């Protein structure tokens, strides 16, 4: 197992280098706004633009820029400075990470809390009215775009503009000054982000449970006289949940990498997703690079965690 983990970590580092290279190349190959011109302003002369370009090292050959960047990141943990605010990229990311992390953790707890019981019950009581209702509802939530759900939630339930003012609304995270207040400001975003994901997970778990409950060893367990609850929870769910664990690892990694863009934008949560939108709009390469690297890091880490968890969940899985 230890050798397996070390091998995965080394592959993870290699992947991060490749991701960095790809972002570099994309930034230079695909048309992007010139950060030197954006900084210089509308009436700046060419000399000033060249001077700024020199200052930002944008006139260095791309491989020199890339090598300098890699050295700074891997040797000094320095991700450079934002072209816009000159603030440290690392500081900005760490400043915004808590908001994204709180959003993700809360949403994960909520969606698992909904999806697992719903998926289990739907599988066990297949084709019942409850099963049909939950599956149709889940289809509705999967189909609804997150930004639309978010706006509807605001207009219905936000305590400043909603028809039924129940929850803190847009921008309330900015003014929350305690952990509890921050959690309060996340109630609507959690529900919105969890809605579609819970629906997907419920359907996956239902499908997986149906397959698992048809296995021979389940019949054997029943034949041995085990209580049905034990058959379902200890034997059925344990095997059926492995695809969910894979999904969960990917989803957490992606959300921490900035995939909650739409939720953060609708509710004005100052997280990683919101920052990447700002950075792309203003061609702020160091910021884009930094966020992509962090995102890749989270995805690698969480995939590794998931694979390790597999070994505990499924005794057939052993790593060498």
């Amino acid at each position, binding site marked *: 197992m230890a050798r397996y983990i070390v091998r995965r970590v080394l592959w993870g580092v290699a992947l991060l280098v490749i991701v960095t290279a790809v972002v570099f190349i994309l930034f230079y190959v695909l048309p992007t706004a010139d950060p030197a011109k*954006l900084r210089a302003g509308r*009436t700046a002369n060419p000399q000033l633009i060249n001077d700024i370009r020199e200052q930002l090292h944008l006139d260095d050959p791309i491989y020199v820029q890339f090598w300098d960047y890699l050295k700074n990141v891997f040797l000094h943990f320095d991700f450079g400075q934002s072209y816009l605010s000159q603030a440290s990229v690392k500081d900005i990311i760490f400043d915004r990470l808590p908001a994204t992390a709180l959003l993700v953790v809360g949403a994960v707890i909520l969606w698992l809390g909904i999806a697992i019981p719903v998926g289990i019950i739907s599988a066990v009581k297949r084709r019942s009215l409850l099963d049909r209702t939950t599956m149709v509802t889940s289809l509705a939530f999967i189909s609804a775009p997150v930004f639309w759900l978010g706006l509807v939630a605001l207009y219905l339930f936000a305590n400043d503009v909603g028809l039924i003012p129940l929850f803190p609304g847009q921008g309330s995270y900015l003014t929350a000054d305690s952990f509890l207040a921050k959690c309060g400001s996340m109630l609507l975003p959690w529900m919105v982000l969890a809605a579609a994901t819970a629906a997907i997970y419920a359907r996956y778990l239902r499908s997986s449970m149906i397959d698992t409950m048809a296995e021979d060893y389940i019949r054997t367990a029943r034949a041995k006289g085990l209580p049905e609850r034990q058959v379902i929870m200890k034997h059925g769910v344990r095997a059926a949940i492995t695809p969910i664990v894979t999904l969960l690892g990917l989803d957490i990694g992606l959300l921490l990498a900035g995939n909650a863009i739409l939720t953060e934008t609708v509710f004005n949560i100052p997280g990683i997703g919101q920052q990447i939108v700002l950075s792309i709009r203003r061609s702020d390469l160091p910021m884009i690079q930094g966020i992509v690297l962090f995102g890749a890091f989270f995805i690698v880490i969480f995939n590794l965690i998931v694979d390790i968890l597999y070994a505990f969940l499924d005794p057939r899985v052993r790593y060498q």
Partner: protein
Amino acid sequence: MRLRWLRLLAPLAAVLAFAFVLTSCGDSDDESEGTGATGSTGIPEEFAAPTAAPDDAKAGGDLVILNEGDIDYMDPGAAYYQVTYMLDFALFRSLVSWAPDATTDPTPDLATGEPEVSEDGKTITYTIHDDVKYAPPLQDQTVTTADIKYAIERSLLPGVANGYTSTYLSGVTGMDEAIKAAEKNTTEAPDISGIETPDDTTIVFNLDDTSSAGVLGALSLPVSAPVPEDYAKKYDAEEPSTYGEYAVFTGPYMVVNDCVDDETGEVTDENCSGKITGYQPGKEIKLVRNPSWDADTDFRPAYVDTITFQEGFADPTSASKKILDGSSQVTGDFPPSPTVVKEVASGGQYDPSQMIVTPSGGTRYIALNTSEAPFDDVNIRKAVIANSDRVALRNTRGGELFGPVMNHFIPPLIPGFEEAGGLEPPEGLDFLASETGDPDLAAEYMKKAGFKSGKCEGSACDITMVGDDAPPGRDTATVFQDQLEQLGFNVQFQPVEHSLMYTKFCSIPSQEPDVCPNVGWIKDFNDPQAFFDIPLYGPAINPSNNSNWPMLDDPQLNKAIEEAKLIEDPEERAQEYGELDKQAMALAPFVPWVWDNDIMVRSEDVNQVTNLFNGLTDVSFTSIK
């Protein structure tokens, strides 16, 4: 059998019902309601901007400004954005500034009064207050004229990259040499020999020509906010300068730093570095009272205790409603959506006085590339303008309240506007006479251009257009594309991201398409020179950051622009620029379509005061009821 039909019909009925509801909703009328244009700005009286605090305005309270984006720079030497100025006018005292109702003459700020201008117009002398102190960490230091001189000099450094100093202060003696020195030594501010400080309270600007109007205008911007050299030079030595993270303030407010309490502004640490902690890029800027500020030396009353600039509100509809339904809030950098504008204007749920409409001093136009066929032919350009339904173009931004249809270049409230025709087009320019388009007249111009059918024909009519890929810019481009195609052009439209549109296409002469539909120009200060020095001046065309998008290079117009900026008498200047405007419009370089209005909403408990200089909230005059 019956059940099977029901299984089919039920979802079908649901879909039909949904489609019916969908098509019944929505509004086909894009025009915002107004009770009719009034005055020389075209803005209905009920939305007129208050430019003075009420007599019973009281001190205290916390103002919150909601914004979509961020300021551009905290460094006053680098700031070049009207929304940044909204805060800068409260944070930094410049040599001169703008009181809310000032539209022609700036208000003395650090200066004790109007400048002394020599008879030949080439020497401008200011005297400044001798008792204005900096905010912590320099609370024991008094502002001197050397600090103002240094502020202007450091703006030439590439690490500060001020966008307008070298343009508007080009007439100051020694400016060219200073610019060259800054290119050679990029970490030390050069000396501008034409700026002299014979003592701590006197500053003299020596000019090579009589371009004092431009100089005076530029001095009203944050570039003349004092920067103490001893404190700032170590930050300016870095590339780019990090002074913005340690800026020192002189206005009634300051951004929270490591010296003061983030609620009260009281000094908490005498040995602090001055590092700004209240600015979180993309999130929030927190302003508190400057403990060093002396109200007796300032024209600003500064009612509220704190100002919070919150960012990231991407949906203007929900953000506007949050303000209208909430308390102590105003809009910052975004207008309300057309839906909200209409709702407030109709006076139903909200009081119409919660919406304020002000000319922004900005223009929007569609640039036609005059350097290449087919738009190198003035008759074709006139045909395109005559054919354009400019009301339809204006509607893509939301309708009447978003601004009057533009009929010449100088916008409302800028000297020269009335002289150029006011809200009406200049006399004698028939192609601008109709705001909704005159296809017959367009056909006449096309015939003059050699197209006998009255429409464009042949390969000369294959044109390229690069515009915004997101609404409302994309909507404007699409409407204009349709209008061009009605005239016979084959338009290849490439939508791209907004900043890319400028930096890779429209601002690069070698890459510029035939049409740039989403360009515009906003004043730098309240003088018509700010409208002609760059956008229509031939020598201003530059190969990598061009803002003369029509690529206009008319020798007679160029000469007239050079001569007009040397006129000192305000009345004569306004008259001359009015004539210049007519002369420029006669060349038909672009399709003018709207003089932008700034539209803001406020919470009911806010006595919002608008600064007519930038059409935005003047936070130093705004109070909470």
